[in-house]
């Protein structure tokens, strides 16, 4: 470069007034939008954290709920039981769907499954709750129960697991599949020894996302899991179970400070669960990036 050449990162001094105004307007709009969103988000998080921290005590984690007071052990346990119950049902089916879409889906099958998955994402969760209520709680006579609640959560998380598994498996480079086939590997060998192991961290990320959604769900559980002040005794049907989001929903409308404290403590716990799961899923994703060659 010669000495007389202009520096590459010239300031936009030569720009017309109109372009500078447009630029300013654009930046202002973006900044304002960001600030509004960040303010709302911060306000919620700070509010939950402040009032939740104030309500925190060891008893929350060790005692069960008594009326509108006591602890949240039953709700914490219930949230975990329901979320894992949901995953137990949704993961095998969802990952299998993902494999089908990524590897085998030809003709009309795959677009149909994909369309249904997208419709299910858009389904209001309370509709899912009502559907399982009619089917399991009423018709099958399971009453409010772990089984009914888990099925509702499984239906909610299924499309997420399915689509994220599909994308994870597709992202495994074609080069590696070709290499495997050239070594005499059949369909199953390519899928189970190459595609699936390499997609696993990304599939795991999708599962964690579905878990975060399950932990935060309320509506489908109102119709299916009920509520219980007691610890779960292990029955899958005809035994209602507590969960954290119910504590938020029910206790915040009570006229007692004690109940509000419980609601905020539950809100803080749910937020922390979701935060931990999100961080874990990011780590899993980073691991998958490291693992895949020239992706």
């Amino acid at each position, binding site marked *: 470069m010669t000495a007389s050449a202009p520096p590459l990162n010239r300031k936009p001094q030569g720009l017309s007034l109109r372009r500078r105004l447009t630029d300013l307007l654009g930046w202002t709009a973006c900044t304002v939008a960001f600030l509004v969103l960040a303010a709302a988000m911060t306000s919620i998080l700070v509010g939950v954290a402040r009032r939740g921290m104030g309500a925190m005590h060891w008893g929350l984690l060790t005692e069960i709920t008594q009326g509108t007071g006591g602890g949240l052990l039953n709700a914490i346990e219930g949230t975990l039981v329901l979320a894992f119950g949901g995953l137990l049902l949704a993961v095998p089916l969802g990952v299998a769907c993902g494999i089908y879409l990524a590897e085998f889906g030809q003709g009309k099958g795959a677009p149909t499954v994909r369309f249904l998955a997208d419709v299910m994402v858009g389904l209001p969760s309370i509709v899912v709750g009502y559907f399982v209520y009619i089917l399991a709680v009423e018709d099958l006579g399971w009453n409010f129960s772990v089984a009914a609640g888990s099925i509702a959560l499984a239906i909610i998380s299924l499309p997420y697991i399915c689509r994220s598994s599909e994308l994870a498996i597709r992202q495994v480079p074609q080069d*590696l599949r*070709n*290499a495997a086939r*050239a*070594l005499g*590997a059949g369909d199953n*060998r390519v899928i189970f*020894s190459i595609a699936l192991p*390499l997609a696993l961290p990304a599939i795991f990320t999708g599962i964690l996302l579905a878990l975060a959604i399950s932990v935060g769900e309320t509506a489908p559980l109102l119709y299916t899991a009920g509520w219980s002040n007691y610890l779960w005794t292990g029955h899958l049907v005809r035994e209602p179970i507590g969960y954290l989001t119910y504590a938020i929903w029910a206790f915040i409308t009570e006229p007692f400070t004690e109940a509000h404290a419980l609601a905020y403590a539950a809100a803080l716990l749910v937020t922390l669960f979701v935060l931990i799961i999100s961080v874990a899923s990011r780590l899993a994703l980073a691991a998958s990036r490291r693992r*895949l060659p020239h992706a």
Partner: protein
Amino acid sequence: MTPGNTILNRPLAAPKPAAAPAPAPATRVVIEARNVDFFYHAHQVLFGVSLEVRQNEILALIGPSGCGKSTFLRSLNRMNDLIAGARLRGSLRIDGEDIYAPGSDVIALRRRVGMVFQRSNPFPFSIEENVTFGLRANRLARRPGERVAVVERSLRAAGLWEEGKDRLKKPALALSGGQQQRLCIARALAIEPEILLMDEPASALDPIATARIEELALELKQRYTLVIVTHNLQQAARISDRTSFFLMGRVIETAPTQQMFTHPAVQETEDYITGRFG
């Protein structure tokens, strides 16, 4: 491209194993293509390709981009089957057996006909797992200790044993580009194919790594039959016994390499190897 006579002035063999004498005419024909046409949907890419490959020789396929040489190579282990709309007409026999006959076993074919790709594509597993993948896929060498022996034999054959023996459990992707390509060769050799197909195996490598692959090819032909697609005419001249020149989906000429590069029988071949087009 340099003028043809520069090529001709170069020694025809790589420094190490001296150029093998032209194969005895009695050598067995391993691959025999008769009037092979190939289509992607309605688009025809090969027109009446006929050629044969003899045991323990290196056949180089040369020609400008898009002339069908890679398509022909990939039809020899039926990798083209994976592309929708791919169709072959004519006869393609390996050891006398029609590999496109209805009901013929594609998996068994790929075990006999190994392939090394243009871009090295080791699995993101350990070096050892790369070499044993084909064994596991084909349920070979299942007794304990057997696989260890295969790993050593294959890495030695691919000239990677000295560099790799202390890092068998280390990730294959930590190897250099040339080492990765030799690992891919070792991986293909582990299942003891008869034929090794190489699709521009050195085009992404530096000159030193390229020279190693070429030396390796010359060593491998003692035990295997090799078909190599290359854009590099000097490479074809250095390592191959015979050369086929492809142009727009047709085989223009197949001849002993030395003869083709000194006295091409067809005008188009001469134009191509002297750099007048392509």
